[in-house]
């Protein structure tokens, strides 16, 4: 398909394609990060991750409605308020879920899988009852919806740039929190040896609750950001969950760096392949490759050295 196109055309397409890959990378990191925190740090397989994302999306929807009604003048900036609210709402909901459900199941990881899957069905039906089965349209300020013209033929989606900025911010914040602050040290201690961490005076129950809340809060931010590029409906969370798990498992559980590396690999592979193959075939090739690599390296790309 490279025949008959001018060099100028090809150059600008390659530039835009590069950005498409980077944007996909940001999207993957954003949707997988919350899952990686919970799965990696706590060993809980959170099947309701997608529903926490949609909670964030609905919070964004409500915030946009509030601003249209009461503060139409500030509508252009509502999104930033919505992101913070989405983090808080999803985080608090996550902490409540941890307290009600998850903490009783820490010794039974497979049961958390079933319990959170049930939770995801319940949440979907709750959204359906509250917001209706139809997709809701989340209005975005005009400045967020267009394209930035870098040159006459190179256009970069502004919402993609916002997702990239948001992802960078969240990833750096999570890194600092877990690797540079005392609380992060507690999280890592609890993850590596729960009994010993408890013995040296760490409140493991509290650490668990906050970690789960953090993971869900990040999911909420992701959901909020994805109102710019995707749909908001009771079941939309299901669209992301497979990719999110793929990224986390491929990266190696317990390793945030692994998650980021895996998101980069998968997103670049998919975005390049989608350009040359049909969308469905690209998906097939990526999944086959991931399966192949996981057969050779079951622990994923990166793995933390822990004494089991």
């Amino acid at each position: 398909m490279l025949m008959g196109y001018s060099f100028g055309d090809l150059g600008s397409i390659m530039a835009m394609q590069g950005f498409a890959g980077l944007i996909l990378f940001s999207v993957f990191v954003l949707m997988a990060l919350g899952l990686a925190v919970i799965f990696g740090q706590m060993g809980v397989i959170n099947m309701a991750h997608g529903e926490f994302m949609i909670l964030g999306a609905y919070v964004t929807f409500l915030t946009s409605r509030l601003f249209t009604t009461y503060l139409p003048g500030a509508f252009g900036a509502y999104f930033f308020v919505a992101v913070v609210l989405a983090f808080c709402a999803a985080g608090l909901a996550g902490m409540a879920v941890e307290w009600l459900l998850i903490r009783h199941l820490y010794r039974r990881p497979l049961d958390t899988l079933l319990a959170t899957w049930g939770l995801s069905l319940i949440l979907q039906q709750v959204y359906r009852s509250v917001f209706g089965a139809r997709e809701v349209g989340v209005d975005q300020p005009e400045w967020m919806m267009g394209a930035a013209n870098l040159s006459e033929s190179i256009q970069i989606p502004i919402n993609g740039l916002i997702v990239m900025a948001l992802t960078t911010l969240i990833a750096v914040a999570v890194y600092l929190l877990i690797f540079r602050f005392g609380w992060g040290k507690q999280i890592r201690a609890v993850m590596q040896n729960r009994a010993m961490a408890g013995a040296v005076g760490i409140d493991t129950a509290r650490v668990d609750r906050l970690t789960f809340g953090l993971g869900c809060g990040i999911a909420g931010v992701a959901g909020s950001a994805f109102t710019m590029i995707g749909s908001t409906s009771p079941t939309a969370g299901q669209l992301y969950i497979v990719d999110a798990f793929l990224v986390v498992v491929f990266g190696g559980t317990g390793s945030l760096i692994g998650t980021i590396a895996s998101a980069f690999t998968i997103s670049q592979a998919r975005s390049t392949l989608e350009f040359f193959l049909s969308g469905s075939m690209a998906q097939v090739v990526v999944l086959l490759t991931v399966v192949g690599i996981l057969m050779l390296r079951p622990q994923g790309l990166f793995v933390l050295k822990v004494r089991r």
Partner: protein
Amino acid sequence: MTDDIRSSLRRRSLMQGMAGASAAALLPSLLPGAARAQAPATAAVNTTGLAVTDSTVTVGILHSITGTMAISETGSVEAEKLAISQINAAGGVLGRQIRSIQEDGASDWPNFAEKAKKLLVNDKCAAVFGCWTSASRKAVLPVFEQYNGMLYYPTFYEGLEQSKNVIYTGQEATQQILAGLDWVNKTRGSKTFYLLGSDYIWPRTSNKIARKHIEGHLAGCKVVGEDYFPLGHTQFNSVINKIKLSKPDVIYAIIVGGSNVAFYKQLKAAGVDLSKQTLLTISVTEDEIGGIGGDNIAGAFACMKYFQSLDNPNNKAFVAGFEKMYGDKSVIGDVTQAAYLGPWLWKLTAEKAGSFDVDKIAAASPGVEFKGAPEGYVRIHENHHLWSKTRVGKALANGQYELVYETAELVQPDPFPKGYQ
């Protein structure tokens, strides 16, 4: 559960008295004068043990009101209930009030088959209005054929099917595709097409028909790309770049569900201006625009048989009745209108046949005309599909379509198109 539905329907039918009467006044031919005066004896209209009494006849409604398809099927349920309450307000069918039993297919195809069996075997429904996806229709088809039921199926679909036990009130593929392609070629001079779709039977079959038509019947036209994405795909930046590179005159999009929202949002964000780039879709009705956002799709063209904005007295009465029952902000898409046709066509057929027996309904169906259809006059073809017009609408920022073209004549349904397979 059924009692609840029944009593709420009665309440609604009282409330609907006005709307029903005004609709009926527009359609004098529909007034079942004779039937109302003296209902024929039950033994005469029901020889096969259907749930028919001297004053009622039972029908089923079978759609997903939970699960992922609830998003699409809710409108169909609403339309069917509206039609039933209007028919009841106007005197019922063969002198009998329609009583409906609603079952939830729950977006699960085997469950659809099970519920269909329940409606036919336990409830002895005289007709069933239901199904939305082709997968659910394929799942219930053997049940309807085995137990000899009658299904009124509302969705536009890929064709390649015909059954004595099904009336297809939506368009089959050629009715939705050919006239739209001809129109875009003729009025906009489009020569090159990029075909897109979600990866399952309906978009693939439809694009196959579109490709044959473009390459075989439109002079000098060609397909410059064809791409499919898994259902639920949310990242379209790569294919949008591909489209930008091949610069087609027309993007022909058959993307469904949540992917739709992602596609149009990302198309706009990538700087593709739909007022300059022609985009023709057969998968976005007013229902979907709600989620996509009118601003994001304004300027695109859709090829359907019905738009909420159609300016004719039937449609005005229909929209008014719908809004009265379900609120001012009701959105009515193509399939919702087709679902509304089901109960009316069944009523007219039963009156023509003078019976509720499924065999007689099936035999009497060809030739049945419904002059009160919101889309305008429709007629049932021998192949159990509808003769109907093809229309092209332009999406507006307010979430509605503006009619820009309609075929002069009704388009013949052709579920097994020769030369297109």
